């Protein structure tokens, strides 16, 4: 019961905080609109927000799929092929010195104003965290597991697929969680730089017309997408990895005695 109530209480608390800031500072509604106004705009403009939200959601999801796939493939190749690791790893690290945001105009130039440049943006921003997390997971396999596998006669391939990969799943899940929370940033930045649809476009447009309430409503939709994605991935990770005991919630896990 508490588990269901808690998000509601948190949401309510944050809304109250928001409203009290409006009251205390007496900010005009074109600077900080109150929650009531934003929520009413959210409902009035629901079709518009849904239309643009769907575009952004599609960009985020496709970016996630491509970024995670590329990251996984890179991590697997880095982990299995020594020469590639020695040559590509420094390149990957150096590539992170280039801020992804700075690439947005270039991507726009190459891929146009459509969805492709935003998907590329989300993919790029996800790629490195996923690669790094998976690669770390793959190389930090407990040596005991690998030694045991060798005494059992496992080939390199079997060691990778049946020991290294499953042992890396928890690290992969944390990479995925990070990816889920940064993918919306990539998509929105892409939209800011140049587009005619999407929540990022809607926010810029609303800002220019002083429709601050619409801007906040778009922000709420974006936050909703990001939070839903995060919890979805978290839920899936827990379901797929029941052996990953949560040491913070130890009381909930059953441990058989003797």
């Amino acid at each position, binding site marked *: 019961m508490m588990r269901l109530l808690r998000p509601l209480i948190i949401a309510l608390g944050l809304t109250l905080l928001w409203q009290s800031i409006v009251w205390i500072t007496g900010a005009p509604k074109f600077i900080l609109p109150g929650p009531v106004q934003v929520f009413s705009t959210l409902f009035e403009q629901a079709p518009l927000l849904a239309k643009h939200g769907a575009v952004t959601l599609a960009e985020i999801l496709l970016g996630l799929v491509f970024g995670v796939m590329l990251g996984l493939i890179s991590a697997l190749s880095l982990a299995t092929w020594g020469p590639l690791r020695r040559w590509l790893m420094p390149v990957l690290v150096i590539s992170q010195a280039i801020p992804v945001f700075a690439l947005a105009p270039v991507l726009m130039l190459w891929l146009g104003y459509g969805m492709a440049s935003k998907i590329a943006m989300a993919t790029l921003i996800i790629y490195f965290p996923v690669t790094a997390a998976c690669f770390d997971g793959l190389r930090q396999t407990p040596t005991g597991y690998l*030694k*045991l596998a060798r005494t059992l006669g496992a080939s390199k391939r079997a060691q990778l697929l*049946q020991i290294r990969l499953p042992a890396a799943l928890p690290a992969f899940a944390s990479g995925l969680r990070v990816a889920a929370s940064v993918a919306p940033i990539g998509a929105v930045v892409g939209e800011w730089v140049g587009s005619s649809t999407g929540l990022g476009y809607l926010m810029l447009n609303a800002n220019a017309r002083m429709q601050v309430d619409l801007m906040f409503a778009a922000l709420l939709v974006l936050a909703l997408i990001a939070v839903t994605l995060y919890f979805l991935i978290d839920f899936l990770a827990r379901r797929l990895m029941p*052996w990953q005991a949560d040491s913070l919630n130890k009381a909930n896990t*059953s441990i058989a005695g003797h």
Partner: protein
Amino acid sequence: MDIHLSNASLHWQHHCVFSQLNLTLPGGQWTSILGQSGVGKSSLIQLLCGIADEADVQGEIACSDGKPLTGRVAWMAQDDLLLPWLSVLDNVLLGTRLTQQRRPKPEQIERARYLLSQVGLSERAKVLPAQLSGGQRQRVALARTLFQDCPLVCMDEPFSALDAINRLRLQDLAASLLHDRTVLMITHDPLEALRLSDQILVLGGSPAKLSSPITPPGLAPRQVSDSEVLRLQGELLEMLAGEAS
């Protein structure tokens, strides 16, 4: 099948831990090596298992049947090394999962279930290792080792992480299940060695050497209260303490 290890040497940070070590494991007998930490016991056992990566350890291994030992050794470590994502039954079947393309055959599953019943865990075949206690987990590791059915079983302090009572229980279980197998066990507990072994060797000194074998009388598992066991335990403890000083 007897196994001979000759001219074994181990170097650690340019320092000779042991060299020109010779060891014979008589077929069907349980040999234990006692020694303190740092005398290279684990490296010795990992050399026999073919998994000594970190250490600079060498030696010639010969089997009395003339074939190489590679692939014919089962290894049981202090850590149970159960894979947390596999059920207890699948952990016992790990060898088949890792080496054959297809799913385990029905007779293999039946054998794994039989071994689990031998270690008293047939009820828990489907659960994940995280739901077992330390003693239960080490029993699963024992079942996995037995499932391999190798000519040589190498055990590296297999019961040292357990409490006293569980340790005695597992020693009894191992003695009955590994009866007539060629076993090499490494331990720092003289009582454990005396209860289970046909011959006991002490590895000590610098560079380390193996003592002449001690053969406790009677059949394993020997009683903890057996007067001969207690007397030999005293002797071995004094010998080990002499090493330490």
